[in-house]
């Protein structure tokens, strides 16, 4: 795949939860190495989009297509999507008691690479990436997300991203629940991962503009009622910050059909 090829192409994507349509025709193209921000008010479908892209079983695709690195993404199971280089940093990572972080991370990396990674090599890599995120080594002796603070959960998600080096990372409200210092550390490490992987595409999903102070997006999109209603450069985010979502709501609110 060449650098200038699109990493992800979403065409007229419609998706439901049960009978309720949430996504109503999303169009979005992310090129390799591009940083996109997806903003929108609560309930606009931001998290649905990230879950649909990762393949969460609760959503039904009713029409549209998604091409990821030249392949039809929607035909793949979540684990296949992951192995092909798609990554989702969860807004609310679940805890899995009894599963140790160290073993989990090592197995995860092995399944992504399709080869064994020796404990020694893995320790070395892990140490490097954890240093990047200001994480203490004791962390990996704990159980997956069990008893993690909000900040620890988010750091752990970004640690996984740093280890996996995905082709496209979806960051679902990674800023939520972080205080300003933690947000800064997390954003800096996202930037560091992006800098070492210049081909990595990023889709930053967020409600607020503050995360974009640290990560400069190339494009900003506004999702409203299941559609991208406005796209632009990073100035769009600042505009939103100044005016709030009210203007968008006035301009794009669909009349309710009876």
């Amino acid at each position, binding site marked *: 795949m060449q650098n200038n090829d699109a990493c992800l192409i979403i065409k007229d994507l419609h998706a439901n939860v049960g009978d309720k349509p949430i996504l109503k025709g999303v169009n979005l193209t992310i090129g390799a190495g591009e940083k996109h921000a997806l903003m929108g008010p609560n309930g606009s479908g931001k998290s649905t989009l990230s879950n649909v892209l990762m393949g969460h*079983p*609760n959503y039904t695709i009713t029409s549209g297509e998604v091409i990821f690195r030249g392949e039809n993404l929607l035909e793949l199971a979540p*684990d296949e999507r992951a192995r092909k280089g798609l990554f989702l940093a969860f807004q609310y990572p679940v805890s*899995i008691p009894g*599963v140790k972080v160290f073993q*989990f991370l090592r197995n995860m990396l092995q399944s992504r690479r399709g080869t064994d990674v020796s404990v020694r090599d893995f320790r070395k890599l892990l140490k490097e990436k954890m240093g990047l995120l200001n994480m203490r080594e004791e962390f990996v002796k704990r159980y997956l997300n069990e008893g993690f603070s909000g900040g620890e959960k988010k750091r752990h998600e970004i640690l996984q991203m740093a280890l996996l080096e995905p082709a496209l990372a979806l960051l679902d409200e990674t800023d939520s629940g972080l205080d300003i210092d933690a947000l800064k550390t997390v954003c800096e490490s996202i930037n560091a991962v992006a800098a070492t992987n210049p081909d990595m595409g990023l889709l930053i999903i967020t409600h607020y503009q503050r995360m974009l102070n640290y990560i400069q997006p190339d494009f900003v999109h506004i999702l409203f009622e299941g559609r991208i209603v406005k796209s632009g450069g990073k100035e769009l985010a600042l505009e939103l910050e100044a005016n709030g979502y009210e203007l968008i709501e006035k301009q794009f609110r669909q009349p309710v059909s009876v």
Partner: protein
Amino acid sequence: MAKTETLYRWQEALHTPVSAAWMQTLRQNAWQAYQDMADPLPPQRNLRKAPILDREGLQVPGAGSFSDALKERQQSWQFAAALVQDNGAEVALTLPQEVQAQGVILTSLKTALEQHSDLVQSHFGTACAPTATRAVALNAACWQGGLFLYVPKNIELQLPVYFLQSLSTAQSALLSRSLVVVERGAKVSLVLDSWSDGDNGAYVSDVLEVIAGDGAQVQLVALQAWSTQAHVETVRQSKLGRDAHCTDLQVTTGAAYHHASNLVDLMQNGANTRLLGLTLGSRQAWYRQDTLQNHLCPHTQSKLVYHSVLRDQAYSFYNGMIYVDKVAQQTESYQLSRNLLLSDASRADAIPNLEIFADDVQSGHGASIGGLDPDQRFYLMSRGFDRRTAEDLIVEGFMEEVILQLDNEVLIEQVKHHLAMYLLGQEPEEEA
């Protein structure tokens, strides 16, 4: 109930005289009690129907042997001393001189009656009365196998004592009665490994009493790996002295029917128990677990965590009780039963009970029954684990949560190894 001669065929054959006169009397009284008692009524709940064993078709087991399978099983453990019984008869005993020199007694209960009759008599039945229930009375009247372990005052054994018992005669009945006495300040761990091979029906009754003196520390790990058609009744009753600690892990992987009672009496101030249970049910297995955390004195503590993983048509009924006497102030008790259902036809019922008569205590209880969490599965799959691996990881984590509470690295590793071997044997054949 018709008490015909045929009904008591194997029971009478096993109700044979023993050497100690006091025990002979005790057996006769128990036999009488067994005949006079009615079977207990089933709980007034809508439980799944238990499988029925044709008891009349059973026979007395033949002579025991120390088969290669038993040797292999024993070799997978590290131990300070070991006893192996097959069909209720002692077939191997390892008791190194240095352990014996400390005054530790490990022997079959039958042998103990010949050599240490007074010692056995002073403890036997003090934790679990010989006629407590009909099943216990039958056991007292007819037991053949079982061990006697005695650990004298202030003696600490680093490695566990290992007791392996098996049943190798098909369609037979095995009754064993064990007595463990751990004196003041002594420390011991005991692995109770129960195993039988094949698919033959059998009846197993196993009663174990543990008497832990003041400050004693006891760890019990019981592996119940009876054959898939066995009907098993186990009763464990422990009596804990002042500041005594007793941790007990029950791992149940076998049997068609297993009714386990696990009762702990916290008799003195500061006694502390941790009851752990891990049940892996498959096929038509039917399990029932009755537990009692009996707080009879102030400042006593108990914590119970029972997890079960049920596949196929397996069924589990958890029936637990925390009892806090009115003098048992400042006690802490906790009880949790969690059940993971991995198939549509598996089922679990859980009844956690509290009876608290003291007014200054902490107590908590809970139960959960449900399938695999789809969000956990999705999370793991989104990290590149295929569906099967993701599910295995979640189930393993669910099991490890219990095992890791053992506080004994060596035992944790060995129990995990045992489970891994069991799960390997359970792997469904790969679809072609």
